[in-house]
């Protein structure tokens, strides 16, 4: 069996119908456990006080804001190379989810930054690249909405997605090569010594799992909707032609 079989809308609908309830249940479970653990059962940080509790929303949302765009990039490349409609529709479905995660990152970052840095906003490299990423999400969504022909919209939004990927990667790595900003280094790393303390680390991992599963669930549900909308549009056009 090949992965490309799921580019068939019928097969994708069957698979997503079976998977999405499990993904949704696992997402709710992880989010409830992770957020309750993080909010109620972890101590304050010795420097940041109770604001450290914002980490359980800010870091997973930021991670998924970037990864959502990278998923859209892969789906867009599949569309451009292999012309599978499901991949273009999956990219379209992921954009509002990625935008929401980007908004959560920016808002929680502002709420966290105000007491720690003394300002809601700074033109810091990481903050600025995230703002640009949010604008790319808005542009991507608007471009899909503005073009009537589905294939042309998929072509143009795929190109926009390729360009925006530069900013998605910049958002991810800005703290590594721009040291003049206010934003601290990454909270998570493959090098265990650079991670946050264990007491914050484990609930954070559960929250990240919750955000990943939430993303998967929403993309499945929204891609199903896009496939249904496309079929509905085709049937209505056929009816009008008689």
């Amino acid at each position, binding site marked *: 069996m090949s992965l490309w079989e799921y580019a068939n809308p019928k097969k994708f609908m069957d698979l997503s119908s079976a998977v999405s309830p499990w993904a949704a249940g696992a997402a709710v479970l992880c989010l409830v456990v992770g*957020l309750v653990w993080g*909010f109620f059962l972890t101590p304050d940080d010795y420097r940041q006080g*109770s604001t450290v509790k914002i980490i359980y929303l800010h870091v997973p949302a930021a991670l998924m804001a970037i990864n959502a765009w990278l998923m859209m990039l892969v789906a867009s490349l599949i569309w451009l190379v292999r012309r599978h409609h499901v991949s273009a529709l999956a990219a379209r479905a992921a954009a509002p989810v990625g935008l929401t995660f980007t908004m959560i990152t920016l808002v929680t970052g502002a*709420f966290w930054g105000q007491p720690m840095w003394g300002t809601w906003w700074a033109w810091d490299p990481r903050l600025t690249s995230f703002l640009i990423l949010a604008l790319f999400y808005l542009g991507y969504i608007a471009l899909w909405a503005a073009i009537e022909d589905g294939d042309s919209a998929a072509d143009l939004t795929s190109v926009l997605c390729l360009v925006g990927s530069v900013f998605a990667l910049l958002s991810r790595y800005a703290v590594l090569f721009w040291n003049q900003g206010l934003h601290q280094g990454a909270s998570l790393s493959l090098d265990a010594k650079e991670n946050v303390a264990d007491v914050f680390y484990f609930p954070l991992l559960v929250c990240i799992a919750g955000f990943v599963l939430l993303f998967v669930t929403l993309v499945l*549900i929204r891609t199903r909707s896009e496939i249904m909308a496309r079929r509905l549009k085709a*049937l209505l056009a056929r009816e009008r032609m008689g």
Partner: protein
Amino acid sequence: MMPDLGKYALVVLASYGVSLTLIVALVWASWRRGVRLRRDLSRVEARRNGGPR
């Protein structure tokens, strides 16, 4: 039991409030659109197959 958030209570609670509101709104809108499209598609397919109009 509610933890003591001290002088940062407002920003911490606002972060959770805004984030959870955005997530719930996104989930609700995604689910609602799916339900509406499934209903509309069923109606059109039934019409095509000679079912009730």
